[in-house]
């Protein structure tokens, strides 16, 4: 446009040996960079594959059940139980063996995955949303809002989870919805704390002041300026929260105050299997294994995502 512009125009060359590394990385943002690193990470790929397999099994559980011809609640009195009424072990007709009622453990495990993943994703999703909003508000608004919200989070974090859950269920009765609600209720506060801590440091950055000096309001600053900067740690935390929620659900169901039978979940399967662990190891082992594998896979993935966002040795700015 102006003569001035023309003469000041200069080719953009990357800054000296720091952030921009090679031609290939140019034009990419922090998200793309993290994604690129993640794709090179073998652990991340492995754990994602495991999670994908479990998720697919959960999604297509009815289809698989139809293919095999075993429903989750079908009791195979003749084929699934020995003449003495003992569950039968893994075989070509029952991959994971059967349970005390002659039901197919494999089918029940993949049906259980539906519940586990559903509860894990929905409960941690709710916890994340509430935690992020509350943490943002507490950290950004400060003063009275911060005092109130921080106390609230402290209180929730110090409540005895199981006692509270048992008390609640004895009043309203166990159900899937209550399970999700209870888990979300007890998880959001830790998210809120993490987010609040991040916000406290980010809100002192000059770019927040810059936005304010342009006339941006509190909401805009919270959601446009600050939120993207807490998203990375939040995503990492979410991947770690999902297995936690799955274990919560399993615990509740195990104790009989979560999802109640006959709907199969890993927790209530384990609970049902307890008396039989001497005679039918598969009855305990497969739901337990499913729980451990899922939890470990999510945890490994979470670690990888954290590394991808914050690789050692890179200069943070």
């Amino acid at each position, binding site marked *: *446009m*102006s003569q*001035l*512009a023309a003469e*000041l*125009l*200069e*080719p*953009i060359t*990357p*800054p*000296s040996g720091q*952030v*921009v590394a090679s031609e290939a990385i*140019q*034009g*990419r*943002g*922090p998200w793309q960079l993290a994604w690129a690193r993640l794709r090179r990470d073998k652990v991340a790929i492995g754990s994602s594959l495991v999670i994908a397999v479990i998720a697919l099994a959960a999604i297509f559980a009815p289809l698989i059940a139809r293919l095999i011809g075993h429903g989750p609640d079908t009791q195979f009195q003749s084929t699934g139980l020995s003449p003495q009424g003992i569950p039968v072990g893994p075989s070509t007709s029952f991959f994971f063996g059967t349970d005390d009622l002659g039901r197919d453990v494999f089918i029940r495990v993949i049906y259980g995955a539906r519940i586990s993943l559903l509860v894990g994703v929905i409960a941690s999703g709710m916890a994340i949303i509430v935690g992020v909003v509350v943490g943002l508000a507490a950290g950004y608004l400060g003063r009275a809002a911060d005092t109130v919200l921080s106390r609230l989070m402290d209180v929730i974090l110090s409540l005895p989870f199981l006692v509270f859950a048992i008390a609640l269920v004895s009043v309203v009765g166990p159900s899937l919805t209550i399970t999700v609600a209870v888990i979300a209720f007890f998880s959001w506060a830790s998210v809120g704390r993490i987010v609040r801590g991040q916000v406290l440091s980010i809100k002192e*950055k*000059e*770019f927040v*002041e*810059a*936005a*304010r*000096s*342009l*006339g*941006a*309001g509190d909401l*805009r600053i919270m959601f*446009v*300026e600050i939120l*993207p*900067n807490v*998203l990375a740690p939040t995503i990492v935390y979410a991947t770690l929260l999902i297995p936690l929620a799955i274990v919560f659900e399993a615990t509740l169901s195990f104790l009989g105050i979560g999802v109640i039978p006959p709907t199969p979940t890993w927790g209530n399967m384990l609970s049902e299997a307890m008396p039989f662990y001497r005679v039918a190891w598969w009855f305990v082992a497969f739901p337990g294994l499913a729980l451990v594998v899922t939890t470990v896979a999510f945890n490994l993935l979470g670690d990888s995502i954290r590394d991808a966002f914050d690789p050692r040795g890179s200069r943070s*700015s």
Partner: protein
Amino acid sequence: MTAELRDPSPRTDEDVLLRLEEVVKYFPVTSAKVFRGKRDHVHAVDGVSLDVARGKTIALVGETGCGKSTLARCITRLYDLTSGKVVFDGEDISNHSRRRLRPYRRKMQMIFQDPYGSLNPRRRVGSIIADAFTIHGVAEGEERKAKVQELMELVGLNPEHFNRFPAEFSGGQRQRIGIARALALHPQLVVCDEPVSALDVSIQAQVINLLADLQDELGLTYVFIAHDLSVVRHVSDRIAVMYLGRIVEIADTDDLYARPRHPYTNALLSAVPVPDPDVASRRERVLLVGDVPSPIHPPTGCRFHPRCPRAQEVCAVEDPVLSLQQGDRTGHAVACHFPLTDGEAHA
């Protein structure tokens, strides 16, 4: 104790865009003290009065912690004042609510010191620059993008890079992005808080030239903050030297360099390294003793007296008033009991 510190040089022939009257900003100190006695305060800005003429550049110089950034944030009303007035274009905005300030946000803008901290690392440069348009609802869609690219071109950035992230730019280029953002709504006043301090010399000059060109082209008024007198000489029409929250000397640029009156200004001038071996070997440094005292309990009397080579008894007791020199016509004011006379200044 507080002396009268109005800018003694409101020259009526000039069109004053910004007037500061006795601006005071204290920060409460969060101390570990258990007993609630008298609460301590950081006296960050302690009675600053200043006139800024339209289309001109006034520089604020002084060492770390003397309150330059705090004053800048008082001017742009990012901070509420403890007391005093900020008058912008004839209107006192010192007590305006956020809503009433919004129209003024378009008229005064700020450029920040830290080229890394002042740009959101998670947002694209184009949307950072477009912030002003978004917030004030100016232009939409393609028009907005065109305006952003025009701005990028104006500050010497490649307009095609609007989709990149700040991390992909160098310090000098980031500073240009900050400048583009500040200029988006055609402000009248731009407060530059040490815009080049974090940059290498060869890049510093690029940014200073850019600021000068933009002033010519757009008729901007600058409040230019620096801690180093060698940079501001080049850009400013008038310089105010700050020490511990006060202005100790204010004068037209050439006048200040030629005839510094305040012993602190003199020391500051003599401490700036000169990139010329012959001059450097000829000249004598005025070495100050000690460090800048705490702004929580500033010294009594003249705040500079514990470090001042000219201090006498009266300096510890009586606070000198910022006032014009006898017979002065250029508006050269100094707050000192024993100002330097011609010929006493360092080489």
